[in-house]
């Protein structure tokens, strides 16, 4: 095994080392902790990009931890899908870190940087693992870190939302364990590839049990992805979390979507008897309602951060409409939109913070206040990001939605999908226009406590970079969609993964 093969585990090892080191040195030397955090994220990005390039040849690489043969030991699987998610997570973490350091929100508590690294450890692990129980463990790692990050900065609003967030997720984890137990009892393995083979051999008398297990597992992922009716925890949690943390959480719902894309074709594919594609009948209606609920939330939100949280819900709904097609081209389109919507959601949280920092007691409420510092540039930035989020040209949201609509055009339910995507886009446009005109256009009476704060312009950096990335995503739409299509092909053709993991042939 050459050194290059070990890059596969770097996205897990780097944050696992960086987190305790940052924790140790931060009490005495804050700058050293920040340096460790940045270095770790940059290393992760480098490793992720290397894996992305390596995976572009279409070979599915596996990494057996400790040299234990797959199905006995834990195996990491690096394919195109995993590489895309790794690059996205590393990029987003750098943006969140930049914003946190520039706005000094990382100083609100002691443990921002170690928790961020643990969060990334969980995220990267979840994207890489080929073992269902290991997926559960990495889910827990990222959740535990997210509890800490969510409460970063404290305050009663965060504690209130935090209690609900923790309770909802503990229940979700318990359901995950029940599903795992059922699947293990039925198949006798936890390796996803092997499980996919063994579900085909399950007798007729146990088919109902397999369906129960599949639906439970899908419900857990739907909870993470915040699909209606399991979305209620999200808006409140994200709206009160510290802005850089909320931006990082933009990828958390995508972990649920990722898990669905990974697990359903692999385990509940065509070979699963009566449990084949078991979530299909429920996923599409849920996705459609999620898109409607999310963008309606954008319309009625009272604060910009709340609006950003609802935009995340809505974009997950749009994303799931494509995923629910379970075809190579729909999932390929979904992957492009997934990358875009994560960046766009994060940018929206950054902007909400930029506005809040400049408006004193008006904060980021959607209300008219006195003219604030650098109002025009912030307004332009908000306009551009909002264009990206709702999916108007020229930014990547437009291409993403176009791809999704094109890919579902063959499905019998295309009318529903098109109607909902177009209608929610319109609702989103009106919602953002309303927010923009209230915050940036109208002028309210000048009050003493709303004295416009002068803050350094550098806090717009993260939002501007996110915006540039969205621009780059639309310029490079050709290669990115080609990569996404190829990734979707790998995922849908689960036999290849089985060969790569179990070493058959």
């Amino acid at each position, binding site marked *: 095994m050459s050194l290059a093969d070990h890059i596969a585990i770097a996205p897990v090892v780097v944050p696992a080392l960086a987190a305790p080191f940052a924790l140790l040195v931060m009490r005495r030397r804050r700058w050293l902790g920040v340096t460790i955090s940045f270095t770790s994220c940059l290393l992760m990005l480098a490793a992720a990009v290397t894996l992305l390039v390596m995976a572009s040849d279409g070979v599915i690489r596996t990494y057996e931890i400790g040299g234990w043969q797959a199905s006995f030991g834990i195996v990491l699987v690096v394919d195109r899908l995993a590489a895309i998610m790794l690059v996205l997570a590393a990029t987003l973490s750098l943006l969140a870190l930049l914003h946190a350091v520039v706005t000094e929100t990382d100083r609100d508590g002691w443990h921002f940087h170690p928790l961020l690294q643990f969060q990334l450890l969980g995220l990267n692990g979840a994207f890489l693992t080929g073992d269902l*129980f290991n997926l559960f*463990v990495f889910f*827990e790692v990222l959740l*535990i870190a997210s*509890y800490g990050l969510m*409460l970063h900065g404290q305050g*009663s609003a965060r*504690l*209130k939302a*935090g*209690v*609900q967030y*923790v*309770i909802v997720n*503990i*229940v979700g*984890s*318990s359901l995950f*364990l*029940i599903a*795992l*137990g*059922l699947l*293990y*009892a039925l198949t006798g393995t*936890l390796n996803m590839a092997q499980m996919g083979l063994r579900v085909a051999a399950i007798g007729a008398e146990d088919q109902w049990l397999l369906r129960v297990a599949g639906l439970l597992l899908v419900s857990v992922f739907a909870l993470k992805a915040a699909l209606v009716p399991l979305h209620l925890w999200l808006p409140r949690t994200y709206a009160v979390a510290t802005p850089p943390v909320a931006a990082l959480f933009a990828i958390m719902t995508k972990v649920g979507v990722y898990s669905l894309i990974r697990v359903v074709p692999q385990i509940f594919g065509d070979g699963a008897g009566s449990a084949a594609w078991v979530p299909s009948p429920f996923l599409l209606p849920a996705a459609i309602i999620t898109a409607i609920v999310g963008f309606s939330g954008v319309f009625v939100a009272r604060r910009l951060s709340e609006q950003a949280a609802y935009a995340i819900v809505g974009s997950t709904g749009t994303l799931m409409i494509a995923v629910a097609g379970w075809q190579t081209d729909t999932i390929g389109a979904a992957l492009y939109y997934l990358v875009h919507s994560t960046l766009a959601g994060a940018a929206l949280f950054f902007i909400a913070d930029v506005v809040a920092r400049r408006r004193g007691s008006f904060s980021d409420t959607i209300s008219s206040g006195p003219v604030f510092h650098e109002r025009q540039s912030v307004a332009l930035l908000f306009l551009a990001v909002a264009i990206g989020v709702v999916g108007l040209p020229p930014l990547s949201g437009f291409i993403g939605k176009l791809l999704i609509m094109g890919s579902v055009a063959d499905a019998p339910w295309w009318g529903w999908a098109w109607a909902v995507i177009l209608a929610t886009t319109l609702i989103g446009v009106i919602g953002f226009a309303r927010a923009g005109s209230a915050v940036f256009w109208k002028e309210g009476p000048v009050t003493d406590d709303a004295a416009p704060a002068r803050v350094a312009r550098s806090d717009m950096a993260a939002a501007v970079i996110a915006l540039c990335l969205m621009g780059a995503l639309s310029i490079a739409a050709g290669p990115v969609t080609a990569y996404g299509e190829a990734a979707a092909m790998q995922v849908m053709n689960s036999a290849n993964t089985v060969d790569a993991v179990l070493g058959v042939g």
Partner: protein
Amino acid sequence: MISLEFLVASAIGVLVAGGIYLTLRGRTFQVVLGLTLFSYAVNTFLFASGRLVVDRAPIWSKTVTEYADPLPQALVLTAIVITFGMTALAVILTLRSFLETGSDQVDGDPKGKHEDDPS
């Protein structure tokens, strides 16, 4: 004579029922208790997923031909550690939330504060 399977299954069922009932209550202490019961049930369930067998060795031995499944024990151990940590976190968090907001309702609403509180 009831079978082992019936005993374990009904124990899990009772725990889950109690857990769900308590988790749906409005006050945080009851919810934490409910989560604990629920996680006990899940752990027992996970343990049973390797089939219930009596008097079998889990590890290789020369004299034995039939084994108990050793994997669920490892899984349960992991799950116990995680749920224990989570429960501890939930306790601390609800306590902090109660001290900070003065309400022990899950929705943070103070109106139900004195309903069934004798003190």
